[in-house]
């Protein structure tokens, strides 16, 4: 039995880029176990702040064959997290129990070295507290037994209006996440680095329609009822005008 690995599966097919996950994450975490998520200059020029999750937007192709892709990104909780072994203090760690990658702020010296070892740009340094912060998969609510079971999920997952975020154990073949990955061509970001990110993404899927010509004119065509089925006039030329057999 492989180890439990909690993760998010993000469905790019339905993400409309509304940023609900971004601010609900900020809201839960800034006053939660992983908080605060400091803001710098929140009401002034060039406001910045710590967010564990951001929605980026990409464009593919050229007009008119353009795709607009909304792309939420947070820590991918790699199964081989390159950020963990490089931490000199052990502040960055991967939990044995569920594979969540966390930072212990009390041990973090703020050297930022872990962020160098993350190809995904998923870590956020908090200048207020001087420690590295990141997505915790809302570890402070997913095991909170005072919450009803269906609310024991990361804030972003609960908020997402288009249910583009699925949460679960990707090593449990029966979990929603595993099924979603299996059934919809789930993929990992930058697999070339061997980090084995746990978060997966589901690609865009297209529904197309083919209308056959003969479907356009049928026996129950109302034009027939009205006696107006398009029909060439008697005088319209036929092959009789030119045939010579």
């Amino acid at each position, binding site marked *: 039995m492989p180890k439990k690995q909690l993760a998010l599966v993000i469905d790019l*097919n*339905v*993400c*409309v*880029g*509304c*940023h*609900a996950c*971004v*601010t*609900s994450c*900020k*809201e839960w975490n*800034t*006053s*939660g*176990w992983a*908080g*605060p998520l400091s*803001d710098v*200059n929140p*009401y*002034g*020029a060039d*406001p910045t*702040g710590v*967010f564990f999750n951001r929605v980026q937007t990409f*464009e593919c*192709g050229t*007009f008119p064959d*353009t*795709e*607009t*892709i909304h792309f939420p990104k947070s820590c991918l909780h790699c199964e081989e997290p390159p950020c963990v072994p490089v931490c000199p203090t052990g502040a960055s760690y991967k939990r044995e129990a569920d594979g969540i990658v*966390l930072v212990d702020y009390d041990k973090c010296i703020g050297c930022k070295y872990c962020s160098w070892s993350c190809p995904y740009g998923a870590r956020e340094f908090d200048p207020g507290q001087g420690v590295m912060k990141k997505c*915790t998969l809302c570890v*402070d609510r997913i*095991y*909170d037994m*005072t919450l009803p079971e269906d*609310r024991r999920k990361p*804030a972003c997952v*609960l908020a*997402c*209006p*288009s249910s583009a975020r699925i949460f679960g154990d990707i090593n449990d073949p029966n979990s929603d996440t595993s099924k979603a990955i299996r059934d919809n061509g789930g993929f990992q970001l930058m697999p070339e680095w061997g980090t084995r990110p746990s978060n997966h993404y589901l690609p*865009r*899927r297209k*529904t*197309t329609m083919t*209308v056959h010509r003969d*479907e*356009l004119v049928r026996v129950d*065509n*109302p*034009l*027939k009822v*009205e006696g107006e*089925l*398009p029909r060439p006039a008697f005088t319209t030329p036929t092959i009789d005008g030119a045939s010579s057999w």
Partner: protein
Amino acid sequence: MRDPESIPDSELGRSEVKTTTCYMCACRCGIRVHLRDGEVRYVEGNPDHPLNKGVMCAKGASGIMKQYSPARLTKPLKRKDGAERGTSQFEAISWEEAFSTLAERLGHLRATDPKKFALFTGRDQMQALTGLFAKQFGTPNYAAHGGFCSVNMAAGMIYTFGGSFWEFGGPDLERAKLFIMIGTAEDHHSNPMKMELAKFKRGGGRFIAVNPVRTGYAAIADEWVPIRPGTDGALLLALVREIIELGLFDRDFLVRYTNAAELVNQDEASDEHGLFVRDGSIPVRPDTFETPDKLWWDRESDKPVIARTPGTEGRLMGSYTLADGLPVKPSFQLLKERVKDYTPEWAEAITGIPAATIRRLAAEMGVTARDQTIELPIAWTDCWGVEHDKVTGNPVAFHAMRGLAAHSNGFHTTRTLAILMTLLGTIDRPGGFRHRAPFPRPIPPCPKPPKGPQAVKAGEPLTGTPLGWPADPDDLSVDADGEAIRLDKGFSWEYPLSVHGMMHNAITNAWRGDPYPIDTLLLFMANMAWNSTMNTSEVRKMLTDKDEAGQYKIPFLVVCDAFQSETVAFADLVLPDTTYLERHDVMSILDRPISEFDGPVDSVRVPILPPLGECKPFQDVVIELATRLKLPGFTNKDGSRKFRDYPDFIVNFETEPGSGIGFLSGWRGKSGEKFLVGEPNPGQWEMYARNNNHFHYELPRSFQYMRNWNKGYLDWAYRHRMIRFTDPIMPHIYSEVMQKFRLAAEGKWKGKQPPDRLRDRVKTFFDPLPFYYAPLEWSHADSSRYPLSAVTQRPMAMYHSWDSQNAWLRQIHTSNTLVMHPKVGALGNFDDGAWVWAESPWGKIKCQARFSEAVEPGTVWTWNAIGKVSGAWGLDADANESKKGFLLNHLISEELPNMVAGKPVSNSDPVTGQAAWYDLKLRVTPCAPGEAEESWPQFEPMPQLPGQTGFSAKLRAYFAGRTGK
């Protein structure tokens, strides 16, 4: 750090969870607010709420920061004596002083000339109360923001099939197979739409987005069909033509359930030309709006008979002559003739969409509707007593909003869409369009605007409601000369069906004194000195303009707002409103409830926190004012106070004494045993609160579909006083209402007729059938000089929200750029990121260009209302919003000069008065080297106001983020 699992979050500090309704936008989701030691800790979606079922949007999750905004106003303010208006020089006053000042001034106006008081509210959802206040005050000069929002979408559809999108109805994505979204449509009902769209896509539905820009929902569409702004009407007309030419319309539906087969008088000489032929011998009840005296041409007997006579079937096509020699045609035939030349090739030249694509779209819609029919085993009875053992549906659904609406041709565009939906047989049927209670309404709905100057009398309530639905020219609000009686000229011959008013012209008209000057303008949550107005720079000047005597042309301006908005600077009196977490509200069935397809739902908002400082909810202000002014309905017969406050008003107010109809429909009756109609229930608020702040009545299944013609439903709605008639609501393929106005313009109407200068305009635009015309502004904007169309939309993280200066949301969108195709830059010789001048015939602005391939090359667009005046909204003077952000509104005129007899008219739809925001044409040129990289125009920075939260809020936010650690 402690183990994150060791202590549940709720056990840190003193925790409470309260439920209420969100108001970060107009979506109105149920929320649970978690408090820790009395401060907001977390706001989450309420899983037990029917609207959002636990989900949340970016705004809702940022509501916590609204509470800590440094822009909060906390004290009533008055402009300092001697200070110039617009300079933000205020002194704090008491509420008593504010109320007595207002009561004295308004009391005098009411006693002399009530129309000199104008009340315009940016945000609706409390229109039922503010409209009531205006009516009881006696002024016709009242409207909410619908006129510059999406009134074409409401009017175009309600005048066609008695319902519309957003709160009124929507696409049934649960059962649809093909979904077409046209134009910017994200704002309304956004969370439910996102939820349904995701389910729809996962279920294998096909989603087509027609939009000049590929953002938002269009991003996840299976197909993006880029279109030039303002040309949707041409596309839709070509689709209608194709559907008709291919015979892909739902003939049975059209014959039986619409006026498609009804015969129209074709005698041009007749005074009844273009009206339905009626058999005078058929008795017509006075309490009916859909008379049973119209004719159709029976296919079997080849004779005219009363429409829907059992055993007959009307012809949709052909040209006939009645026994008396009157030439007639079925209205469908007229539509067919109308659209004959609207070929896909014709539409391609206008819309930029290849004709082959248009043909394919028509085929997809038609074939899906015809071949993928849904049948539900639900028995129902139609209005003619025919019993059906099933409900069927054609699973093609549409959604559209401002993208179609905000053009001067938007009414006809919307009507064309409504007709397309009707042709496909998708009205209130599974998989198509579904109504939300209290819709469908009769066509048009019953409330009527004041019908003339006699409706406005000193010291008395207004006759009629300030806003209503004209059914014929006699319902217009005009005087004996045919001139406007409303300040905004709504319901005048210039914009006869301006059913949501024309707030966008209120300030200009008041400033010019045309039709008349006013005394007091009260604005609530309407940022009329900035993003809620067209021609912003000029409107700001009008607000401070003085007459020869040195008096302000708009003598007294009262602004009620929770925040230091740009408009507050221009106020003579500022009333500090509360945030949504500090107030009671109702999402009333009298207004815009949150009904579901399966039945009426209304909801309430209850305070979670005490009001900050001296903030007072606007509704309490309205009720206090009404009480002091002794307005009927708000006071007892002896003039004494009737309602303690707003919650008391909501419980005890009845539309008429003993009517049993009030603002809330749930738990009426003495102990809450009734709904919709029943005596006031003192425990109503608690009962709502216990039920997650909403009341939901799920209709019996047999009442849930085909409600336009569903006898059971209409009877139920009649008994519960949701509707005045039980007549079937027949979609108007052909609009007799429009034709009546046209007849008036032709001099054939017995009643009111337009002034001569407007006859041509009315005749042209009041066409009973839809037609395409280029947006009116384009006749002023030489396309070689102004080649680009410009549109705006709001980003999802901010849409339909008015306080986007939220500390978190503004990090996502701090400033805006003008987004355009790289070709525009190549032609203008500038690069991505260059600073450019954008010029329209009406003005120019400086902004930053951003290239994108997801925009139709003839279109530029930007996120709206990101740009701010320096220092406004509690932001620093050098905030990006004011230095890099910009407002396109400076380029949009609120009037078009020389339109009628050399005089200006509003830059609006000539039918509905819908503000034509999206008609804008402009050109883009690069800035000269050395020009400042800063947006233009810039305005004097707004200072912080007395009582404004300012820095202390920042401090509170700082600590709020750290409690419970």
